[in-house]
């Protein structure tokens, strides 16, 4: 299919066909609306199916996850190549994302040359800034020292941090350190205390976006897909009207809405993993080459205000 505009109804440089083509690759992402201080999210496929065209808004950002630079086995011997494809897709968006979140497992083996390749590749991303949190593959042999030196500037001692954008509060958490035998992901008491203080000063109407590598909800504990002390962290966020939790680790999209909290996991840019319990172990899923790209992706998140957006909310709910 040629890449040219066939119907440009909104005069925004993107038609439905082109938009669908781009987003089909990105998989089922999350689309968030900031409306009257309340963040609402929808499956991106729903938004696409309703022919909504341009998603440009006050703030949009993209989530990358699980690049696993250094992995070289089936089904993807070229993870740097697929990362570059993901970057190219983002750079082709009509409006560049305000920033990018990388939710960990930048590398496969925490090797300096793997970090080099990741950093070098992401330099070509058209965005203002990239925020990182580590995955367990980034902190393998040195307790995360190399990761934190390169990607954790301006963070707390343990690597966690927060920042504000367009009235929303973003919190990057680290749940891959000091894991306990038999356990799941772990935040630890020091980080929990910091989190409680960090959000104490915020109004309950502030939209909250939390991002961390391992899911902060119990996806499939048998495979370690959850975080032991996530409930305590989430208890500090209960009073907020809108909380969005973005994770990686499980190399597939999954979404759950629980009260005021929407949980979403992103695809990997490297290789897919099996659905919970659908294999002997959570090891890399070996798929035919022609099916690989359909199982990889990124997550596109947009905050939109305005009349046009209100219409979207009505039709989606």
């Amino acid at each position, binding site marked *: 299919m040629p890449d040219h505009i066939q119907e440009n109804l909104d005069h925004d440089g993107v038609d439905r066909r082109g938009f669908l083509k781009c987003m089909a690759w990105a998989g089922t992402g999350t689309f968030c609306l900031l409306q009257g201080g309340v963040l609402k999210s929808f499956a991106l496929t729903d938004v696409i199916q309703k022919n909504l065209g341009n998603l440009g808004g006050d703030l949009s950002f993209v989530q990358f996850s699980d690049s696993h630079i250094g*992995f070289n*086995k*089936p089904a993807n011997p070229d993870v740097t190549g697929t990362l570059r494809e993901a970057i190219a897709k983002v750079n082709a968006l009509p409006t560049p994302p305000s920033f990018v979140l990388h939710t960990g497992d930048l590398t*496969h*083996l*925490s090797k300096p040359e793997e970090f080099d390749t990741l950093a070098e590749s992401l330099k070509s991303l058209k965005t203002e800034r990239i925020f990182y949190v580590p995955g*367990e*593959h980034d902190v*393998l*042999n040195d307790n995360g020292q190399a990761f934190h030196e390169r990607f954790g500037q301006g963070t707390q001692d343990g690597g966690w941090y927060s920042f504000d954008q367009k009235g929303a509060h973003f919190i990057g958490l680290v749940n891959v350190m000091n*894991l*306990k*035998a*038999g*356990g*799941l992901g772990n935040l630890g008491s020091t980080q929990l205390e910091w989190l409680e203080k960090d959000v104490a000063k915020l109004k309950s109407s502030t939209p909250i976006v939390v991002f961390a590598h391992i899911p902060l909800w119990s996806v499939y*504990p*048998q*495979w*370690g897909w959850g975080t032991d002390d996530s409930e305590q962290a989430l208890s500090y966020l209960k009073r907020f009207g809108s909380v969005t939790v973005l994770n990686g680790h499980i190399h597939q999209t999954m979404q759950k809405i629980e009260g005021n909290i929407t949980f979403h996991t992103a695809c990997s840019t490297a290789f897919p993993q099996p659905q919970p319990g659908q294999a*002997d*172990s*959570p*090891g*890399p899923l*070996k798929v035919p080459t022609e099916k690989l790209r359909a199982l990889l992706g990124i997550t596109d998140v947009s905050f939109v205000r305005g009349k046009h957006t209100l219409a979207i909310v009505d039709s989606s709910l």
Partner: protein
Amino acid sequence: MRRWKTKKNSAANVFRIAILATAALSLASGALGRRFVATAEEKPKSNAVTIDNFSFAPMQLEVPAGTQVTWINKDDVPHTVVSLDHTFKSRALDTDESFSFTFQTPGTYEYFCSVHPKMTGRIIVK
């Protein structure tokens, strides 16, 4: 799974070639029976732990004091071998990499993979 079969086949081939080579050598030296038995006999593997499908096999291993235990990673992702009391701790083992530790003191040693902590195992030293 495909990788496993391929390795098995190539290992079997190597084994067959070794037998043939030994047989030829034995014929030349006139001591076929003794040499053939010595080659075909597998070394005891009771001191080996295989890491496969995100688990340690066997999960529990009993060895006499002084035994060197070797863990080998057959998974496509890295794993570690870390004892709870920090008696031993490996670096991250990539596919086909191994780690060995010699147990001198009798006791029960619980260990896990610090990358995937659901993976646990036990070495009992008599």
